[in-house]
């Protein structure tokens, strides 16, 4: 069977489910972030696959560039927040951090 659009879409679907699983189950906040990166990557695969197999020019690839950019910004901000939380609570396990204010 020749590799076509649905192959790429199925890869991205499995990657998306892995990301959701990581976001739900992991205790460590950094591993939750890794799950979010997996989700963003799977969305990008979808955008680029649809660009390749349609008459749309390169709009999907342009959107993919913006997604990568936002992922970089999100990782920087989220890690700053995680480091701050670690300084305050001495842990980054999201189930132990339940205080809004000390």
């Amino acid at each position: 069977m020749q590799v076509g659009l649905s192959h790429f879409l199925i890869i991205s679907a499995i990657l998306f489910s892995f990301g959701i699983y990581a976001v739900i189950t992991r205790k460590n906040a950094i591993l939750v972030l890794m799950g979010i990166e997996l989700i963003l990557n799977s969305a990008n695969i979808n955008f680029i696959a649809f660009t390749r197999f349609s008459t749309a020019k390169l709009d999907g690839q342009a959107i993919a560039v913006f997604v990568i950019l936002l992922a970089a910004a999100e990782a920087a901000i989220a890690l700053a927040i995680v480091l701050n939380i670690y300084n305050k609570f001495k842990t980054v396990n999201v189930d132990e951090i339940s205080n809004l204010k000390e």
Partner: protein
Amino acid sequence: MNLYDITFYFFAFVTLVSAGVVVFSKNIIYSAFSLLFTFFGVAGIYVLLNADFIAVAQLLIYVGGILVLLLFGVMLTNKVISVDMKTGTLQTLPATLLSAMLAGALCGLFYATDWKIIRIPPAPETTNSLGEMFMTTYLLPFEVASIVLLVAILGAAFIARKDRSIRRTT
């Protein structure tokens, strides 16, 4: 099975297996390093989809930037020497059910849908036309994105700063 298909299955295998290690490994360091292979595999998939610029950007930004940031985060928030870097999991059963159902539904949907596929011959390289699009069609989002990056840099530096005494006194 031509070369394209074999390459696709290779990259798909690398991506999915290393993503599985990221999700299921108990050791944070193993997860972080196998995320590297996931990003490489996804970049290979981008190349197979004729997205050369995105593939290189993926390697530069994800592998060179985000992964290093995540590794810094892992190193700074775990006592590397004293405590072993294990991490626990929560709500394993509902999460397994939910993500398995999600994967099944999405795969079934993608497989069953009769996509109208148009195979136009791909452009030899996309960087030129992408640059033109950013300067014409996507000019406003492009400029807004640069402001977003600036704000993100300043915000991250401000949040992660250790000494807050200056702000308290003013």
